[in-house]
C-alpha cells in the first residue's frame, strides 16, 4: 500500500462511519458527545507528556485557551468570506478547518516557548511552571480588551459536530499510537525510565521532551477550538486550572502511559460528571481524594502502561517489523560473522 494511503487509512475508514453516526445520534446527546470527544483529545494528548515521557504538566488548560482563542479570532475574521465557485457549506467547513489549524499552531508555539526553558532541567519544575503559565494566560486574557476580557468572545459559528469530534479524537489516538510504537516514541518511554541512561545512549532528552510537549500542546489547542465552536463562546473561566486538574485525574486514573486507559477514563468521567450533577460541589474534593488514594494504593492507575492493541487479536495492526532477509545482503551489524561465540556463560 502506498505510504500516503496507509497514513490516511484510519481517517478514510473513520469519516464515513462518523458521518453515519452523526445522522443517527439524536441532537439531545450533543453536549455529552462534545464532553467525551474533547475529554479524549485532552487526556490522550496529556498522556504523551505526563505518561509517555514522565514529565508532569499541569497547564493543559492554558494551551486549550490559546487554541480556543486563536481559533475563535480566525473564525470571526473569516465570517463573511466567500470563495466564488464553492458552495457556502464547503467554505464554512474550510474556514473551520483553518480556524482549528490556527488554534493548533498557536498552541504549539506556546508549548514550545513554555517547554524550552523548563524542560532543560531535571526535576519537578515543569509542574509549577505549567500551573503558573495556565494562570498567567488566563490573567492576561482577562486584561486584554481585544480578547473580550472577562466576557470573552461570543457569536462563534456552531461548527463542532460528531464528525469533527470523532475525527479529532481519532487524530489524537492515531498520533499517540504511532508515536508509542515508533522508536522515537520508545525513546520517550526511555526518558521516563532513566533519563541519564537515555541521554548516554544518544537520545537528545531535552529535544525530545520539548517535541512531546509541543505536540501535546497543539492537540490541547485543538480541543479548545472544538469547545469554542460547540457552545459558540470562549471565556477565560472555561480554562482554569480546575480544567487542567480534571485532565490530570483522567490520565492518572487511566494509567500514565496507556492511551487505552486515557480513553476509558475520559468516557467514564465524562459520563459520571453528567450523571452526578447533584454532587457537583464535592466533585473536586472527590477527585483530590481519588488522586491521593490512587497514588497510595495503585499508582499505575487502571491500565498501567498496557494497551488494547497489545492484545493478541490486535497483533496484526501495523507495527515496526524487520525486513524479510534479503538474499545476498550483508547482515546489518556483522563485520565478520564469527558464529555465536559471544555470551556463553
Amino acid at each position: 500500500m502506498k505510504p500516503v494511503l496507509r497514513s490516511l487509512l484510519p481517517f478514510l475508514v473513520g469519516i464515513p462511519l462518523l458521518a453515519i453516526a452523526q445522522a443517527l445520534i439524536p441532537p439531545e446527546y450533543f453536549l455529552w458527545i462534545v464532553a467525551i470527544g474533547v475529554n479524549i483529545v485532552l487526556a490522550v494528548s496529556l498522556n504523551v507528556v505526563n505518561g509517555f515521557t514522565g514529565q508532569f504538566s499541569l497547564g493543559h488548560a492554558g494551551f486549550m485557551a490559546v487554541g480556543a482563542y486563536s481559533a475563535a479570532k480566525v473564525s470571526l475574521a473569516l465570517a463573511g468570506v466567500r470563495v466564488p465557485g464553492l458552495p457556502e457549506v464547503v467554505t464554512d467547513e474550510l474556514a473551520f478547518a483553518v480556524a482549528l489549524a490556527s488554534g493548533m499552531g498557536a498552541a504549539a508555539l506556546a508549548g514550545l516557548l513554555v517547554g524550552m526553558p523548563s524542560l532543560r532541567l531535571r526535576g519537578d519544575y515543569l509542574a509549577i511552571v505549567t500551573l503558573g503559565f495556565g494562570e498567567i494566560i488566563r490573567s492576561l486574557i482577562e486584561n486584554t480588551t481585544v480578547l473580550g476580557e472577562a466576557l470573552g468572545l461570543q457569536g462563534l459559528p456552531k461548527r463542532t459536530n460528531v464528525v469533527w469530534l470523532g475525527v479529532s479524537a481519532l487524530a489524537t489516538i492515531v498520533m499517540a499510537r504511532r508515536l508509542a510504537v515508533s522508536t522515537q516514541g520508545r525513546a520517550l518511554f526511555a526518558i521516563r525510565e532513566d533519563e541519564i541512561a537515555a541521554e548516554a545512549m544518544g537520545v537528545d532528552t531535552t529535544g525530545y521532551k520539548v517535541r512531546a510537549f509541543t505536540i501535546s500542546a497543539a492537540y490541547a489547542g485543538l480541543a479548545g477550538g472544538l469547545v469554542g465552536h460547540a457552545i459558540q463562546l470562549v471565556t477565560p473561566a472555561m480554562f482554569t486550572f480546575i480544567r487542567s486538574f480534571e485532565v490530570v485525574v483522567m490520565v492518572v486514573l487511566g494509567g500514565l502511559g496507556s492511551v487505552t486507559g486515557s480513553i476509558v477514563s475520559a468516557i467514564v468521567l465524562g459520563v459520571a460528571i453528567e450523571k452526578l450533577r447533584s454532587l457537583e460541589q464535592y466533585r473536586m474534593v472527590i477527585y483530590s481524594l481519588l488522586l491521593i488514594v490512587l497514588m497510595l494504593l495503585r499508582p499505575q492507575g487502571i491500565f498501567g502502561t498496557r494497551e488494547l492493541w497489545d492484545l493478541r487479536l490486535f497483533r496484526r495492526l501495523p507495527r515496526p517489523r524487520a525486513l524479510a532477509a534479503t538474499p545476498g545482503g550483508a547482515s546489518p551489524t556483522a563485520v565478520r560473522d564469527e558464529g555465536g561465540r559471544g555470551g556463553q556463560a
Partner: protein
Amino acid sequence: MAELLQHLVNGLSLGTIYALVALGYTMVYGVLKLINFAHGDVYMVGAFAGYYLGAVLGTDRRPNVGKAALVTMGAMAICGALGFVIERFAYRPLRHRARLTALITAIGVSFLLEFGFQLNPLVRTPIEFPPGPAPRFFPALVDLGPPLEPLGATVQRIDVVGFVVAIVLMLGLQWIVYRTRFGVAMRAVSFDSQIAGLMGIPVNRIISGTFMLGAALAAAAGIINASSRPRIEPLLGLMSGLKAFVAAVLGGIGSVPGAMVGGFLLGLVEEFVAGYTSSRYRDAIAFAVLILVLLVRPEGLFGKGRVEKV
C-alpha cells in the same frame, strides 16, 4: 520621592510574606527533594486558623496584644500539626517510590485543601467550617492607631509589626538551623539522607520536624498577610504559593538564606514593576522572573548545582 518610598515599603511588606512561605518550600525540598505543592495551601489554612481562633477568642470585640499573640501561636501550632499529618500520611508512604508518584500526591493534597475549604459549611457552631467559597474578612487583631506617614508615604502600623515579627521569626529560624542539633541534623539530611541515617540521625523525625517548622512559618505569614490584606478565601494559597515558590527558586531552592533573600527580592521587584507599569501584570511578573531564572541561572542566587552521581 514619596512614591518611591511607598513602593519600597509595600515591596518589603510583600517580600516578608514571600520569604516566610519560601522558607517552607526550600527546607522541605532540601530534606526530601520534593516540591511540596500543598505548602501554599497550608499558608491559606494558617490565615483561616487565625480567623477562626480570632472569632472564638472574641478579638473583634476587644482586640489586644495578648489575644493577637495567642491567635498567631495557635495558628502556627495548628498548621504545624497539619504539616505533620500531610507528611506522615501522604508523603512518607511514598518515599521509596518514583518521584512522580509523590508529586502527584502533593498535587492531590493541595487541591484537597483548596476545594475542601470551598465546601459549604458542614458545622455551624462554634465556627462555620468549611468556610465555603465566599471570601471572609480577617479581624483586626490589635488596634494600633493611625498610620505613620514618613516622608509622604503611608505605612500602616500593623505592617511594621508584621515586618518585625517576620524578622524575629527568620532570625529564630537561622538560630535553629545553624545553632541547634536539630538544625545540624536537618542540614545533614539535606545533604545526604542515606548517610545521615547511617550516622544515627532519626531521619523520619527530622523530616517531620522540618515540615512542621515550614508549616508554622507559613501560618505566621498567613496571619501577617491577612492583617494587612484582610480579604481571605480558600484559593488564597494558589497564587501566593506559586510566587513564594518562585522566590525560593530565585534564591536557590534548598538554601535557607536564599529563600529569605529571594522572597524580599521578588516582593520588591513585583511592587516596583507593577507600580511603574500597571497592576494588571502583577501576577505575570513572578512568572517572568521564574522563566528568567530557569533560563539564566537555574540553581538560583545561592544554590549550587548538585552533581548527580551516576
